[in-house]
């Protein structure tokens, strides 16, 4: 009888440890997903005014306010590294940097540019991050997924990166 109970306890403990391990792995994956600098979820809303891009962008964090701040950073990063998908009658916008490894090549520049309160904020014209609510504020496991509508000064951002030698201008080499 004792033998049966012992083996039952061992089995339960094993199941418990494996479940914990799997959950930890899931947590780790989720954290990596939320903190990934490549995780931009964007929806283009239409053609922006001259030199600007208008779109909705999402940010993730434990805190809804921080998620909105991250969304702004994601908006600028998306313009630089990934481009903006077509939508709302607007065509696809290519990424400002053409080198796919620009974030590594110019790491120091981007670390400073995207630092808290960094220069990237200069290119965020308008946002709706006051009080995201309803479907723009989604409670996810251990955090929030918050959407803000942004207008990015795309042309000014491109010119700045070209001046700094981070992006190639169209007339480069001529």
């Amino acid at each position, binding site marked *: 009888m004792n033998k049966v109970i012992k083996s039952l306890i061992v089995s339960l403990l094993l199941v418990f440890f494996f479940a914990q391990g799997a959950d930890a792995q899931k947590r780790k994956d989720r954290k990596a997903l939320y903190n990934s600098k490549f995780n931009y979820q964007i929806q283009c809303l239409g053609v*922006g005014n001259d030199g600007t891009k208008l779109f909705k962008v999402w940010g993730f964090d434990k805190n809804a306010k921080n998620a909105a701040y991250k969304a702004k950073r994601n908006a600028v990063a998306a313009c630089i590294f990934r481009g903006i998908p077509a939508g709302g009658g607007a065509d696809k916008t290519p990424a400002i940097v*053409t080198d*796919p490894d620009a974030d590594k090549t110019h790491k120091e520049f981007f670390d400073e540019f995207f630092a808290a309160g960094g220069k990237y904020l200069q290119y965020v014209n308008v946002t709706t991050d006051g009080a995201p609510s309803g479907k723009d504020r989604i409670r996810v496991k251990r955090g929030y997924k918050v959407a803000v509508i942004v207008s990015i000064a795309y042309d000014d951002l491109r010119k700045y990166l070209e001046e700094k030698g981070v992006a190639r201008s169209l007339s480069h080499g001529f």
Partner: protein
Amino acid sequence: MKKSFLTIVTLFAAMLVFGQHAKKPTIMVVPSDHFCISHGYKMTFDNQGTQVVLPDYKAALQGDGSLRLVISKMSGIMAERGFPLKDLEQELKNIAQASAEMSMMTSKESGASLAESPIDMLKRTAKADIIMDLDFEVKKRGPQNYIVFTLNGIDAYTSKNIASASGTGNPSTAAAPELLLEEAVLSHMDRFNGLLMAHFTDMFTNGREVKVRVQVWDSSPVDLEEEYDYDGETLELGDIIDDWMADNTVEGRYSNSDNSENFIKFEQVRIPMFYERKGKQRAMNTKKFVNNLRKFLAGDPFGLTCKVYQRGLGEAWLIIGEK
């Protein structure tokens, strides 16, 4: 990762070694044949019984306010990107003015006119390295207006479409067609310029793509099957020219697309962006490249006299036999 790194290194190496800028392509917006003809800006000729319809660019530019608005908007964007556009309207005026001046011009002493062959007259047309072929239409769906916009970037060197952007705008009841047109230009230009940049990057890495044609005058004593002892081998002239192309194009990139004893047609010929002259690097062009082939054939053991004829911006012919 490795590939993109190598591309960047090659680009920078080219810039550093040569310390010279490549020939900047000229770009011009031209309304498409479809736009001109469907809006009635056309000229009709009777060519030996066949009706030929051609676009009348002057009439289109003078009579269509929307076209002027779109071209103006595009010019502004391109100038801001470092590529001021050649203005088609001004270019046409300039050609007409130059033609009038040329026909009136005489020398002071003998009263001689300017020498001009029929070919020279044919060559007096508006040209650009890249043509932005533009087409748009304001369409209606009930009370709503929407824009169908097509922009193709044609490389005049190869006639290849190197960049294109097209699409249909969102229908609107409130916005005026002019506003929708402006929106269409803003919507598509970034994508178009992105593709243009990819084309330029390819050009710096793999050379400028051009066409070369070798012909023989009917008075020539030799054709392309004439045999010569060259480089320890007995080879036909056509094969020797083929070898020269392999040695002088960027990474031997070219295609011998058709040939006979009288002609060879080379396509997708990648010529270098620069050449050296008097110790300085200069921007290479198609005529200069083919002129090097002419010099090669003028030397031993060939001793051939050849004419170099530039046809358009990206094509040159070498005609063997005489000038």
